[in-house]
């Protein structure tokens, strides 16, 4: 132990020997306080992003440390938002790191009373099977007036306004190729 250094860094010593005899300022600053650094500075990287809430489209900076989002704040460069965020945008870090967020597939079997675990890949396989079965069973080549329709009304989809354009594109493309037409989103709520 470096006794002298430790001893001299004691607040009470600094208080009585420095310019802060009342011990209210520099003399009272702890080593931890003096070493404080903002986590925006200690982040491994900063990633440009856009707020996921409303359609104003505020710029966000996402700070990542050890492959975890540690802070999200406004991007001052954005001509839309000039670095500012509303309460929802300001809560984005909690949104992505929310303790309530579900990160495992949940499955409820028909007539079941609770959720069960299910492997992700198995779940997608089961969903693909359901789509194929429903589509085959409900396929219409012609409507009841004999007009070609080439479609299924057996399943529907809702949502897209919170998603990326690229995602909406794949959704519409895939469902249209399957002949599904009841594709809708938040534009009609």
């Amino acid at each position, binding site marked *: 132990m470096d006794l002298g250094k430790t001893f001299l860094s004691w607040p009470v010593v600094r208080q009585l020997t420095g310019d802060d005899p009342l011990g209210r300022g520099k003399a009272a600053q702890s080593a931890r306080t003096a070493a404080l650094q903002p986590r925006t500075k200690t982040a491994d990287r900063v990633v440009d992003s856009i707020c996921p809430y409303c359609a104003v489209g505020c710029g966000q900076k996402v700070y990542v440390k050890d492959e975890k989002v540690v802070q999200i704040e406004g991007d001052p*460069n954005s001509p839309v938002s000039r670095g500012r965020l509303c309460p929802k945008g300001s809560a984005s870090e909690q949104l992505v790191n929310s303790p309530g967020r579900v990160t495992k597939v949940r499955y409820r079997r028909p007539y079941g009373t609770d959720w069960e675990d299910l492997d992700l890949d198995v779940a*997608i396989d089961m969903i693909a099977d359901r789509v194929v079965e429903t589509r085959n069973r409900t396929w219409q080549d012609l409507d009841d007036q004999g007009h070609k329709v080439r479609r299924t009304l057996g399943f529907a989809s809702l949502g*897209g306004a919170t998603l990326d*354009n690229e995602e909406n594109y794949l959704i519409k493309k895939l469902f249209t190729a399957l002949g599904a037409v009841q594709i809708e989103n938040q*534009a009609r709520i």
Partner: protein
Amino acid sequence: MAECHPVGFQWVMEAKARGAKVIHIDPRFTRTSAVSDTHVPLRAGSDIAFLGGVVRYILENELYFEEYVKAYTNASFLVGEEFVDSEDLGGLFSGYDEAKATYDPTSWGYAGASEGSVGKGGAGGADKGHAEGHSLGSGGPSVDPHTIQRDETLQHPRSVFQVLKRHYARYTPEMVEEVCGVPKELFLEVCEAVTANSGRERTTCWVYSVGWTHHSVGVQYIRGSAIIQLLLGNMGRPGGGILALRGHASIQGSTDIPTLFNILPGYLPMPKAGADESFESYLDTIRNHEQKGFWANAESYSVSLQKAWWGEKATVDNGWAFDYLPRISGDHGTYRTVLDMNDGKVDGYFLLGQNPAVGSAHARLQRLGMAQLTWLVVRDLNMIESATYWKDGPEIETGELKTEEIGTEVFFLPAAAHTEKSGTFTQTQRMLQWHHKAVDPPGDCRSELEFFHLLGQKLRERLRDSELERDRPLLDLTWDYPVDEKGEPSADAVLREINGFGPDGQLLNSYLQMKPDGSTSGGCWIYTGVYADGVNQSARRKPGSEQSWVAPDWGWAWPLNRRQLYNRASADPDGKPWSERKALVWWDEDQAKWVGHDVPDFEGTKPPSYRPPEGATGPAALAGDDPFVMQADGKGWLYAPSGLLDGPMPVHYEPSESPVRNAMYHQQGNPTRETFARKDNLQNPSAGEPGADVFPYVCTTYRLTEHHTAGGLSRWLPYLSELQPEFFCEVSPEHARERGLEHLGWATIVTARTAIEARVLVTDRVVPLKVGGKTIHQVGLPYHWGVGGDAVVSGDAANDLFGLSLDPNVHIQESKVASCDIVPGRRPRGPELLRFVEDYRSRAGITVETGNQRFTS
């Protein structure tokens, strides 16, 4: 705007600091009102009377921008002799079919319009059903501009200008006061401010949030605002326009690249059963061969889309695989679908970041419908109520549903957050902004991109050996996106496909390069250019402080990075700015091209003096002073000769449920609104019907700053939930006294659908209105809460109160206004709730016919 878009509102505050007057017209006194110069409380559902009153004020006092109106609008066009205005038919236009409750719009056309040249593009003849209005997309309906007759003096009695003047003559300040509950003086103050701040030197902007669309006459609300802005010369000019503030990060993008039933990417219509038998006949519904403007090139856009989706399998011989597209028949919108669910007609349902059990109108019907599904896939960040209705929904409590009797198989697949994937959002001003992936999604969380890519692969695998014709579209689909080592497809590759490629495999720079011969591809023609010069333009982030106020180098706006649509109108017919302080783009004679702060929304080298040769069509037919380049006649429409299903001009109709009789017409409500007379969609009787007094109050819904829509992104967050933890209703002190409601106590709000409970906020921010000699009380309901066991905060859902009654053009529900009753205390629990509501229904004498009589003249 301050309430729902606080960061966007910084610009309003900045304008205010520079002297702009801010007027807030809203039933509710919000955080916007608090800092506005004037708050105008009006009765929910009376907006067209108000807007029509402004139109009348402008016309009667000759305060319109005359040169602009004459040059850039259809004011001088003559309407056909067959047209009869709603003023002369008790609130109906000519062409109404009582039995079908639809219009034949033929008589609304311009004088001399050739047979079939008006009303094409799906304006919805009497037998066309309800599906067409919204399919017109950004181009609007087609008309043939060559036959148009004009009277430049605007004096001809059948000129649009005079038709408009007669139509709104009765929308006097006194009538506004009687219908809207807005005192005459206050109304005139608004008229004076709006007109004084419009013209050469000044512009006025109208801003609405999508609540304006949540009416059975929603489209006509926006039309009303458009007429004002065209008359005042505020379209296409800086500080002008009509700004739609949209509430989801990419709701604009999901309309441009639509997860919607009636359109394809870039607002191309979905083909219709019976009508669109061939690719040629389909194209003819989009564009009239005679018309002006860029929709004339629809074939290039459409062929390029087919090439993007089906590559070399789309050939000239198979009509570019046009038959790979399914056909629609009428309305397949979300409300039609949920009714079909309730009728057991739908097996499966994907919910992708949407929570209809809370956020959709008649949320109760949504939950009951989902309980009829065979399978349900919910993809979300949080365990939303739409995923748990089978175990803790309100209908479990009432005994209407029993968990062990619900046969629905439910898959909950956790989704990736915006920080866990790359891609673009299109914000409310049509600007695409790329967001970069920051971290991998946790656990089983995946992006929709990965999920749908994988689902598509698995489906193709299963049908690999199929010989069935129906499986060709899937098997021939271009679906080979590069994936990273974790299996995530490249969003960049998808955006490139959306942008499109030329014959040489190079990325296209502009949709003008698209060809109808199959040599180009592009997944959404209006987005072509987002990858101009091989650069992801949406990812540009040149600091706003280092560029002009238009900020053209941040992100990318469609079309072709134009930040303000129709900005040719910011210059006069000769191409000079209307005024220096409102200059945006102008014609530079020396350079012989359009220049300015923004990318000109006009052909770059077409001079103002250009006049099309006889017989010209498409863009070449646009004169040098036709600024509305997507319209078939190049003009802004004060009067819509086709394209709308409920009339060429807005008319004041009462909401579907209203305690007020229509003071202006015999016709009470929108005579063409889409209704569903069913036992599970009962309506309250309106004024004039027996039992209307059982529901004497008006209720409306809205958002709060602290929450987001149905709560999926806010009620699971402690930091937001603690700020607004409970569902409440807002009532005036006068209303509270009348009904015995106590501040911070409980109230039960009742409609024909159900009853819900809310904590009571008695506040001076709500004002009773004098409407037609009667006092009208309004109940305000934020709609963010739902019943479930997983969120940090929960509560009854305001949307449970609303029934289904839709705008006929776009199938959007009337959820911003209904009639209701409100009583002190909590609602009954369990089966008692059903008896409580049933008692209301029987007291009001409600049957399935109640409120569903559309024709009431």
